[in-house]
């Protein structure tokens, strides 16, 4: 054990905080990856679901906390539970349905039956376990589970601070602002794109807070936008946005400051590209102020809120990473819409999501390509550092933490600082 620990004792060599340099082995070392799965993913709040994905009593979805497969479920009283998908008898998964509704989980191997709260309810022929077999000791392994504004997180660390404390007031404020794209309706998950990329998970962690790549990697996406939208996405040239360290590895990348609060300036005229949609919603009988609110919400928020270690609230969708191995990471781009909102509004959100996201989007495949290129590039020049020092020169203290230019790597530095803090424990 002590030998293993020694190997990673030189955290300063892995991440040089002062100069913001990352060692190449950070993307490549399988032992380091194993250590990260223990020290990070088993010791913090990890995003597992949005409440709308399992809305009813008895509905559940499968998810992951680091490498561990979990079930997130709502019991008969509406309480959310998260538990490891592993039978306490001889380890078979008790559920292989990605999403659904049930009254219990029954292991297919020898029939041990578990309640929605993970407790062991019944097992066939219990006599052979003797009288002192304690069912209460044989429930599914449970994680602490808490939610904030619909986002459900779970943790293996029993004594961790409450979720809201871990997020902090600045993050919670941005979550609330992000959820305004429900347009007055609850936010609802409409579907998700999933793709696997041969890259280390931290390549993805960096990317969600990287505005610098946008005009380069997403040029071909920008070229398919109308003038006004293209102008809006031109946040690098305009340079009015910022990136700020929000503590605990979280960060905000404010790309379009006028869309920080979707409820602000609602009396502005509806942009041309949304006029058709507005007419459709009007025709359904919505009053004008609600039409404006819904239409504004359809376009999404103006920022990426990046939460350490695995979820980003990205403009108009959730982006979730799941580490698979040191050189493989699964990505989910979760489309969201308005629960009970006008069909036309949700249809437009779906089409906008398809336009950029997922395996066939005009954006994601180019992201995936460059992420893979990073992983391929690190096969050479092992001793060269990876630079995350962009924008250090003109970074200033913000309300919560260091704040830099919109293209600064401030958010990556926030994440690596937290990485180091957790790895040193």
């Amino acid at each position, binding site marked *: 054990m002590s030998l293993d620990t020694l190997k990673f004792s030189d955290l300063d060599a892995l991440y040089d905080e002062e100069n913001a340099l990352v060692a190449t082995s950070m993307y490549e070392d399988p032992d380091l990856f194993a250590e990260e799965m223990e020290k990070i993913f088993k010791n913090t709040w990890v995003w597992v679901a949005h409440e709308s994905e399992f809305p009813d009593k008895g509905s559940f979805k499968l998810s992951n906390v680091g490498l561990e497969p979990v079930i997130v479920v709502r019991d008969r009283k509406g309480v959310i539970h998260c538990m490891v998908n592993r039978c306490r008898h001889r380890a078979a998964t008790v559920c292989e349905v990605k999403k659904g509704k049930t009254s219990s989980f029954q292991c297919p191997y020898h029939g041990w039956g578990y309640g929605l709260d993970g407790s062991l309810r019944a097992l066939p022929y219990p006599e052979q376990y003797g009288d002192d077999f304690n069912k209460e000791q044989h429930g599914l392994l449970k994680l602490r589970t808490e939610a904030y504004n619909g986002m459900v997180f779970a943790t293996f660390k029993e004594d961790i601070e409450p979720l809201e404390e871990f997020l902090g007031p600045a993050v919670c404020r941005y979550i609330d602002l992000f959820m305004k794209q429900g347009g007055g309706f609850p936010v609802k998950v409409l579907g*998700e794109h999933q793709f696997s990329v041969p890259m280390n998970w931290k390549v993805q962690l960096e990317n969600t807070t990287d505005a610098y790549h946008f005009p380069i990697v997403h040029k071909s996406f920008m070229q398919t936008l109308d003038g006004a939208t293209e102008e809006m996405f031109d946040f690098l040239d305009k340079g009015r946005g910022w990136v700020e360290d929000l503590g605990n590895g979280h960060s905000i990348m404010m790309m379009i400051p006028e869309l920080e609060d979707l409820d602000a300036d609602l009396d502005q005229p509806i942009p041309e590209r949304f006029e058709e949609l507005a007419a459709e919603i009007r025709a359904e009988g919505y009053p004008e102020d609600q039409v404006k609110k819904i239409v504004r919400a359809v376009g999404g928020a103006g920022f990426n809120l990046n939460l350490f270690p695995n979820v980003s609230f990205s403009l108009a969708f959730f982006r979730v990473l799941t580490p698979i191995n040191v050189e493989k990471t699964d990505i989910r781009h979760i489309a969201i819409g308005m629960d009970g909102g006008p069909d036309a509004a949700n249809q437009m959100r779906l089409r906008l999501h398809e336009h950029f996201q997922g*395996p066939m989007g*005009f954006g994601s495949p180019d992201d995936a390509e460059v992420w893979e290129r990073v992983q391929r590039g690190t096969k050479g020049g092992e001793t060269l550092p990876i630079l995350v020092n962009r924008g250090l020169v003109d970074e200033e203290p913000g309300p919560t933490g260091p704040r830099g230019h919109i293209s600064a790597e401030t958010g990556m530095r926030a994440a690596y600082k937290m990485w180091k803090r957790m790895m040193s424990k």
Partner: protein
Amino acid sequence: MTEMSKIDTRALLADVTEFIWAEGAMLDAKEYDAWLELWTEDGLYIMPMGAGDDYKNQLNLCYDNAKMRRDRIGRFQRGFSISSAPPAETVRTLSRFRIEAAEGDLITVSCAEHLVEDKFGRQRIWAGNALYTLKVTDGGFKLHGKIVRLLNSDGMLNSFSYLF
């Protein structure tokens, strides 16, 4: 609806197969301008996810009308998209053709599609069920609908720099 029994299905099957094979060859050769020409203006090219068929109200991999098809091809061709410059090479086979319906000037054909892609010296294999809606015109068939549902379409995939 024309009753299937009254159609010379053999001859029709040969005709639609020839058309679909030619379309597949075009996509492998990345002759995208010619491919765009195959379409009716109001045709839809859809790659759905999961079992659902309410494509308009569900999340798909793509849901392309004429404008999205043109934009997609433009993205492939202009050279600014790093994932499609260069794109993966593909070889596909289409088989197990079956005429599902013939209604007015529309013929619906189902088939199986297998595709192998190669990029960075790495090959990946994809399989899907395709459903074509062909429109009979004086100039031959036109693509009016094409729905390709990949195996594991709502599971973990990789990004695509080509069309199915």
